[in-house]
C-alpha cells in the first residue's frame, strides 16, 4: 500500500494543512487588513469544540452540527470584532489573546458540556467507510486551496485595496468616504468563521478532543509561520507552514527518529530555532521571504 495513505501520514498532513489554512486566514486578517489577531486558537478551538459537543453530546446530525458550529464562531467573532474595531494594535493583540485564553479555560471548566480535561470521545469522520481519513485530508486540502485562491485574488480587487489602504493609513481612507470599521468587521467575521470551519474539519482528525489541543501554541505556530513566510503575500502562510511545521513536526519527527532521551532536546532546539527565525525575520525581513522588494519610484 503506497505509504502516503498510512494513518500516520494522513494525520500529519491533515494537521499541517489545517495550519496552512489558519496561517492564510491570518494573512487576510493581519497581512491584508492589519488586525493583530492573537486569538487564532480561540476561533479554531471554539469551532472544533462546538462541533464536537453538538455532534456527540446533543447528537445533532453531522452537516447541521458543522453549520451551527461555524455560526456560533461567526456570532462570537462579531462580538469580539465589535470590541476590537476601534482599538489600536496593541489593545487588539491583548484582547484577542485574552479571548483565546477564555475559550481554553471555559472548555476546561464546563465539564458538563465538554467533559473537560477527561476529553470528548471520538468524533467520527463524515465518511466512516475506512478511508475516512483520506477523504478528510482531501476536503481540508480543497478548503485550504480555496482560501489561498481567495487570498490571491482578493488582493487585486477593490476590496483588497480598501483593506490595504485601511491598514496603511485608516484616517486617510476614512477621509475618502470608506467605512473602514464596517469593512474591518466584515473581513474579521468572515475569516474567523472560516477558522471555526477549519476547526470543525480538524475535529475528526484529532478524534478525541482535550483542552491541551487548543493551547496558545496553535496561535504562536500560525503567527511564526506567517511572519517567516511573508505576512502580506497570499502564499506567505503556505511557505511559512512548509518551512516550520511541515519540516519540524513531520519530516524531522518522522524521518529522523531520535532516541527517546534526546527527544526532549529536539523539541527544545526546534522552539529556539522558531524564536530565532522570528527575531531575524522581524528585524531584517519584516515582510518575510515572499515580501516584495524595494518599492519602485514613478520618476
Amino acid at each position, binding site marked *: 500500500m503506497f*505509504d502516503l495513505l498510512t494513518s500516520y501520514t494522513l494525520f500529519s498532513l491533515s494537521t499541517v494543512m489545517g495550519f496552512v489554512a489558519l496561517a492564510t486566514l491570518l494573512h487576510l486578517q493581519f497581512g491584508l487588513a492589519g488586525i493583530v489577531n492573537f486569538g487564532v486558537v480561540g476561533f479554531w478551538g471554539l469551532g472544533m469544540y462546538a462541533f464536537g459537543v453538538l455532534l456527540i453530546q446533543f447528537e445533532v446530525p453531522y452537516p447541521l452540527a458543522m453549520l451551527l458550529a461555524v455560526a456560533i464562531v461567526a456570532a462570537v467573532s462579531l462580538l469580539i470584532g465589535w470590541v476590537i474595531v476601534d482599538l489600536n494594535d496593541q489593545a487588539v493583540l491583548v484582547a484577542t489573546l485574552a479571548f483565546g485564553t477564555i475559550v481554553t479555560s471555559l472548555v476546561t471548566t464546563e465539564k458538563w458540556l465538554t467533559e473537560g480535561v*477527561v476529553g470528548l470521545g471520538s468524533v467520527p469522520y463524515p465518511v466512516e467507510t475506512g478511508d475516512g481519513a483520506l477523504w478528510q485530508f482531501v476536503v481540508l486540502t480543497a478548503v485550504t486551496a480555496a482560501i489561498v485562491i481567495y487570498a490571491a485574488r482578493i488582493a487585486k480587487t477593490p476590496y483588497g485595496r480598501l483593506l490595504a489602504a485601511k491598514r496603511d493609513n485608516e484616517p486617510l481612507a476614512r477621509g475618502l468616504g470608506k467605512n473602514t470599521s464596517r469593512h474591518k468587521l466584515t473581513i474579521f467575521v468572515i475569516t474567523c468563521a472560516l477558522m471555526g470551519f477549519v476547526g470543525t474539519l480538524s475535529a475528526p482528525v484529532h478524534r478525541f478532543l482535550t483542552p491541551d489541543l487548543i493551547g496558545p501554541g496553535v496561535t504562536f505556530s500560525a503567527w511564526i509561520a506567517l511572519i517567516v513566510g511573508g505576512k502580506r503575500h497570499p502564499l506567505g502562510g503556505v511557505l511559512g507552514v512548509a518551512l516550520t511545521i511541515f519540516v519540524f513536526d513531520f519530516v524531522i519527527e*518522522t524521518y529522523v*527518529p*531520535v532516541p527517546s*532521551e534526546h527527544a526532549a532536546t529536539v523539541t527544545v532546539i526546534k522552539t529556539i530555532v522558531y524564536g530565532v527565525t522570528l527575531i531575524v525575520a522581524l528585524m531584517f525581513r519584516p515582510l518575510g521571504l515572499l515580501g516584495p522588494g524595494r518599492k519602485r519610484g514613478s520618476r
Partner: protein
Amino acid sequence: MRLFRIVARGSAAALLLGASAAFAEGDTIKLGHLSPHTGPFSHFGPHFDGATDFALGFVNQNPPLGREIEAIHADFAALGEGQTARRLVESEGVDILYNSAHAYESYRDWIIGYIAENGRPMMPSVHAGSQKQSYGGTAVEPLFRGSPMDTAQATAVALYARQLGAESVVIVASEDAGMQMSQDAAAEAAELLGMEVMATIDIQTEQTSYRSEVARANNLGPDAMLVFSQAEEGGIMVKNAAEMGMSSMWLGEPNWLADEFPRTATMGAVNTQDGIYIVGYSHMDGPAWDFFQTAWEASEFADLSPAGDSYTMQMYDIINMTALAIEAAGTSDARDWAEHVREVSMAPGTKVYTYEQGIEALRNGEDIDYEGVTGSYDYNDTGVVSGQFAAFSWLDTTEWEQVEAINGSEVLDLNSQLTIDPV
C-alpha cells in the same frame, strides 16, 4: 543493555515513502514503548525506559519462541500519543505497543481496525488504568492493564479514609484526565461508604499557590482531605496549609511517592499536619518480590527508583506476563496472544514467581499461573489486573515507608459497585 535503533532515512526521496517494515516470524519481536520525555511528565521518561529494559534483560536471556524482544523507546509527548503510536505500528512495524496512556481513545478505532487486518500490535500497558473499564481484554482489542483501574485506586483512597475513621471528606483534584476520573470515583465510593462529601474542588495544574483552595477546604472542616494531583501540586497545598497555620488529615494518590512532594512541601510543613498518608500499590511479599527486589537493587537501574515504586514493579510484571503469553500462544499474533494472557496468569496451573520459572514450565508443556510482584496477577475479562494496595508515609525527603496494607478484595468489590464507569 540498551537497545536503540537509530534509523536515519532522511533522504528527500523517502520524504513520503517511509518504508513499512515487513516481518517474518523468525525476526525479533519489536516492542514500541510510548515513553514521556517531553511535556509535563518528562522527568518520568528515563525511569520508565530503565524499568522496561530491566525486565527485558531477564526475558531476553531465554526469549519466548527464541525471538528476542527489542525495545524502541519513543517519546510521545512532542508528537502526540496518537501519532507516535501510528509511527511505531505502521513504519516501525512493532509487534507490541507498550504503555498506551491517556490519549488512547484518540487512536483506538484505528488500531482495532489495524489489529483485525494485521494481527498486531499487542497492547500491554501500565497506564491504561485511566481508560474505560469496558476497553480491552479481548482478541479484538488486546489491551491488558498492568495495574488496577485508576478508579479502583481512588476507591482505595476513600476506603482508607474510612479506615482512619473519617466521617466527612473534601475531595481535591487537578485538571488532569486521570485525576478528574479518580475524583469522581472517590466521591461515589465515599458516599457508598457512608461518608459525607462536603465539596469537590478542582485545582489548576502548574500553579505557584493553592492558598485559597486549601483555605476553602479547611474552612469546611472535613475529617480528611482526599487529593488527586501530581507530587509538586500536593507539596504546594501542604506547604500553603502549614503557612496558614492549618492542619488537616491528607490522603494523597500514588504520585505523591515521588520526592517532588516532600521537597516542595518541606518536611517542616509535613510535620505540622495531623497526618499525610499516600495510598498506592504495594508489593506482595513472597518469592516473586524477594527475587525482584535483590535483582533491581543490584542492577544498573537501581538509582531510577526504589524497588517498591509501583511503576517499576508493574512494568516488571507486565513484561514477564507478555513474554510468557507469547510463548504459550506460540506466535506473536496479538489475537492469539490475548487468548493466552489469562491462561498464563490465572489458576489452574503451577504457580511461577519469575519469568525463568515460567518459561521453563511452559516448555515442559505445563499450564502456569504467574504470581507477580504487584499481586496474584489475575485478569478480569476486560484486561484489568488485581493489585495490592497499601498506605505509605514520608519519613524524610528521601525515605517513605509502608504504614498499613489495605484489603485488595474489599477495594475491588467496592469499585465494581461504582456507576460512573459501567463494565
